[in-house]
């Protein structure tokens, strides 16, 4: 409780020339001084309050001294007397006392006279509602009225409208953590410690304040380092860890995150060296995208829709490079066999016609390109195979003929419309928020694949428009609807079996269709399709 130490008394006594102070009086002097100081402070606080201030000034202390009938300390008031901490001493303070040249003071130009006090009037509220006028606090401040508001006031009394940024306070520990992680990601992603870091990211609670920073970090780094394979891979692993963390609430940042992730899936080139195994990165990212869709698909029903649309565009655009096609295919595959069936298989036939010649040694001399084509072919085959496998596996469980009729009747028109409109509204809102975000960081646009966000109805015209222009040479294979299974799809399936679009909507549920599918795929891929057939009996039946 002792504020005034007896050592200080000794020092003060010496400084005013009292050398022979007996040690007995020191404690009682110290106690008395402490009491007197608190007494003065008590009065000074009263003066401060009655001057309607919340910070004490030297005037208040002077007034308090006068109240106690003591001589005030005659010093300049204001900010000129600021105690400074002496260098290398923790508890030593001093007042800076500058030498002032007399002549300078005399010759200096007179300062401007202070402006006279005035009163201005404005409406703080009209019937309880604050009008949006410059005199009132900006609306942002309404949300955080107690955040430190910067005085937007100039000496001439003109107030300017200034937006006050909301301060986001991060603890020192979190800052250090963030720096450490980002540092590891950038420079030492091969080390064991990076794996530890990822583990920590995936499990630690309390990292939530860092999420926006990590998301921004990922977006920044992806944009800047498209040719740094190592880093991209590390970033994707970081994203995966963040997604795995059960304590983090990533949803609000998804719209910022998705462009980065999608870039790593379908960008034209990832890494600059041949040795960079960008195929692996694409595989990894494809799974990541799929996991995002699975996890957040319920909350944002157009999330998967937007992802598939992006992927499909990458896939159907022959102008894009094979690695991009590969990424798209992988992405679609990871989303599940139904998506593959609806989006990939219809386009399989024409696509293979394009890719076949690329794989021939005599047609394509470029070794690397041939390799890429082969990779894409492999991916396609894999996708188709998984698809057929899943379907054949389901057959025994799906013998429920009575339901077919119902499915057919409501499959297309009856229920589709209201849902569509709803989805349209949702999409529109989503679009707005995303647009905002997009304009926020315009620099990203150059490299990142923009996730397209057409609404079920409104967005449609956009894609059609594009296809009409002729960018896509395969316009007839654009699916009529992008929500798998939500309504009928006009199937041009090689004329093999189906003509009824209604039936095709749920075709995959029917063993018959699966039966048709397999031979078709067999035509396309040959023998390599057969290993995907689940059991030999079924195989026998259908081939």
């Amino acid at each position, binding site marked *: *409780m002792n504020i005034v130490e007896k050592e200080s008394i000794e020092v003060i006594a010496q400084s005013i020339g009292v050398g022979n102070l007996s040690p007995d009086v020191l404690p*009682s002097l110290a106690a008395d001084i402490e009491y007197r100081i608190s007494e003065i402070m008590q009065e000074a606080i*009263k003066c401060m309050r009655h001057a*309607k201030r919340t910070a004490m000034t030297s005037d208040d202390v002077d007034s308090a001294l006068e109240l106690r009938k003591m001589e005030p300390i005659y010093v300049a008031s204001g900010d000129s007397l600021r105690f400074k901490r002496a260098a290398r001493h923790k508890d030593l303070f001093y007042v800076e006392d500058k030498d002032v040249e007399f002549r300078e003071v005399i010759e200096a130009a007179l300062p401007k006279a202070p402006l006279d006090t005035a*009163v201005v*009037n404005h409406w*703080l509220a009209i019937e309880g509602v604050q009008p949006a006028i410059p005199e009132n606090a900006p609306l942002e401040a309404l949300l955080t009225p107690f955040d430190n508001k910067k*005085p*937007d006031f100039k000496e001439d009394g003109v107030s300017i409208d200034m937006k006050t940024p909301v301060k986001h306070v991060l603890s020192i520990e979190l800052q250090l953590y963030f720096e450490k992680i980002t540092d590891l990601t950038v420079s030492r992603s091969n080390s064991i410690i990076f794996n530890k870091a990822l583990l920590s990211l995936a499990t630690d609670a309390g990292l939530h304040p860092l999420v926006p920073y990590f998301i921004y970090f990922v977006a920044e780094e992806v944009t800047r380092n498209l040719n740094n394979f190592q880093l991209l891979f590390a970033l994707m692993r970081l994203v995966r860890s963040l997604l795995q963390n059960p304590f983090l609430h990533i949803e609000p940042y998804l719209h910022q995150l998705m462009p980065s992730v999608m870039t790593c899936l379908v960008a034209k080139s990832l890494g600059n060296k041949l040795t960079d195994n960008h195929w692996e990165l694409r595989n990894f990212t494809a799974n990541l995208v799929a996991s995002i869709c699975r996890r957040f698909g319920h909350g944002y029903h157009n999330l998967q829709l937007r992802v598939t649309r992006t992927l499909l565009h990458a896939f159907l655009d022959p102008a894009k490079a094979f690695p991009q096609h590969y990424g798209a295919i992988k992405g679609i595959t990871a989303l599940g066999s139904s998506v593959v069936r609806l989006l990939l298989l219809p386009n399989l036939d024409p696509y293979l016609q394009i890719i076949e010649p690329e794989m021939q040694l005599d047609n394509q001399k470029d070794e690397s390109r041939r390799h890429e084509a082969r990779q894409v072919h492999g991916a396609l085959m894999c996708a188709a195979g998984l698809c057929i496998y899943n379907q054949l596996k389901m057959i025994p469980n799906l013998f429920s003929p009575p339901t077919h009729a119902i499915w057919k009747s409501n499959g297309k028109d009856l229920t589709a419309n209201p849902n569509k409109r709803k989805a349209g509204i949702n999409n529109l809102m989503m679009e707005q928020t995303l647009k905002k975000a997009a304009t926020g960081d315009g620099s990203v646009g150059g490299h990142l694949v923009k996730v397209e966000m057409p609404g079920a109805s409104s967005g449609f015209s956009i894609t059609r428009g594009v296809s009409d222009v002729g960018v896509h040479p395969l316009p007839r294979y654009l699916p009529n609807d992008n929500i798998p299974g939500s309504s009928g799809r006009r199937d041009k399936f090689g004329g093999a079996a189906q003509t009824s679009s209604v039936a095709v909507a749920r075709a995959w549920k029917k063993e018959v269709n699966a039966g048709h599918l397999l031979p078709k795929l067999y035509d396309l891929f040959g023998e390599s399709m057969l290993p995907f057939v689940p059991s030999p009996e079924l195989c026998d039946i259908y081939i």
Partner: protein
Amino acid sequence: MEEEVLDKAVFLYLKKKGFTQTEQIFQQEQHSKNKNSSSSVNATDVSLSDPDLAKQILAFSQSESIPALYHDGYSKLRSWTYSSLDLYKHELLRVLYPVFIHCFMDLIAKGHLQEARTFFNSFREDHEMMHSRDLTKLEGVLSPSHLEEMEFAHSLRQSKVNIKICQYSYELLLQYLHKTQSITMLGIINEHINFQVSPGQPSSISDDAEAFSLVGSGQDAANLINQKEIHWGLLEDSLEERLDKAGGLLSDSEKTEGDAKEGELDENKKKSTEGGKQGGPLKKLKKDKVSGAAGKAARGEGEKASAAPRVKPELTLPTIPTDVEHSILEDLRNRVQLSNSTLPSVSFYTFINTHNGLNCSSISHDGSLVAGGFSDSSLKVWDMAKLGRMGSSMLQGENDSAPNENTLGSNGGKRSYTLYQGHSGPVYSASFSPLGDFLLSSSSDSTIRLWSTKFNANLVCYKGHNYPVWDVQFSPLGHYFASASHDRTARIWSMDRIQPLRILAGHLSDVDCVQWHMNCNYVATGSSDKTVRLWDVQTGECIRIFIGHRSMILCLAMSPDGRYMASGDEDGTIMMWDVSNGRCVTPLVGHTSCVWSLAFSCEGSLLASGSADSTVKLWDVNTSVKMPKSEENKSGNTNRLRSLKTLPTKSTPVYALRFSRRNLLFAAGALSTNV
């Protein structure tokens, strides 16, 4: 130990009787005894062998001085306690009561009955408030045998009192006792008080339930003072009441008469309203908006107000000129009814370029005049109506050049305000008379000055306080005013006398703010001792004490129906009190810094608060009042329901608030750069 006491007693006795030689010999003996410690053992043995003798010696020495010792010791301790630091005072005060009763009982026990009585009577008033019941019991103790018989006294003698006290207060107390050599007091304190010393800050005054239940008497004793009768109702024959009646009759006979009157009154009315309402463009705006709901609103309000009991005025009140009365009635008719769904419009007066010098601000009832008191001893008054007109005339061009010249001329030069100079210290408070023709200001030069806004001159200087006057306020009907000062008193004055009419003493620290009751019969004061007191103006007695705040009280407001009072403190807490029983209705929590100003809307449904956190908050009074305290404790979020709206300013702490008679809320504050 005992021997030392003995020696001392002998020594004192010798000194008193003037036996200097014997004294010297005695002293020598003492020294020699101390020197050869081995022999001193024997000496003590000898002295101890005769305990009766020792007792006699002691008793002899005591009989001479005891009553005076107790009296002096206690009165010194008491005055020391009262002058100690506010922060620790309430803790030290707790010590006084046990010391007091034990002094009394000691005196009785030693047979000084007469002295005990005088002692008891001279100090009993201090404790009347908290422990009156115990005191009446003890009063009956008249002989040492009573002490033995009386169970209450016996239990007091037997048990020790527990007092929680912080480290620093404890040290202060001990230091004082040692320094002043008050052995008697020290003895009593050691014998009967058990200190529970806690490190750190002193406990808050509102925490000390133990203070009341010190001797098991409970809260009743504390509230005894609050059981005094109070007539909180509104004045008979108030303007509101008259309006209500008039409103009912207006349809028939009154109307014709009213028309006839209208003719002659028209001119008067115009004159009276000229200054206030026509001038401000904002007034007009409001009038348009209001006119629709006006009639109904006023009527409904009237009914509500009439539910409150009526009381007779105890002061002779000034008469209101008829033209003013009519303009007030006009205002009342046009009043907007506010409720939790219809919030008021707020017009904000921002002081700019104050250079941190603005200490207080006041707004006249119609909002046309704004006064600011500055730390450079000046008082400045802005006529907002004129400013508004100047602004509009500038827009209109040269058509109204004549009035423009006038306003400039009257203000003298380019200044937009009227400067009142006269004080010789910072001006801490200003208050407009209800009609706006007078202005009072109080200053640290311990004077109050009365200014005329018509002549722009100082009329009277009231000297009476001997320390800075923190607050001054006109009574709701004018003529009388109340002031609050650092000298721990509040005073009631009338404009025509330079001496105060009443001095209200009783607060233990500075009186920081003062507020008249609506019926002019009572005055409330808030103090640095963390209590609010309500005083009867006629008798000058304290009739209510409101305990509950945890820091200095900064502002007060009375509800228009006279039943409720709101007080705001340094921490940002606002408390709503029921004047009739002295209990806290509910605390309103929400501000983060000092609450500088409070105002009830005219029909009492809303409370506005202005704070150093640069916000104006609007609170729903009706729900706050209805909600019992227990329920409010259950659910934490009820506060949010009661707080209707927060209106942040840009960077302007809100110094003053005022609801006009038509329920437009005016607020004022200084734009500050270092909030």
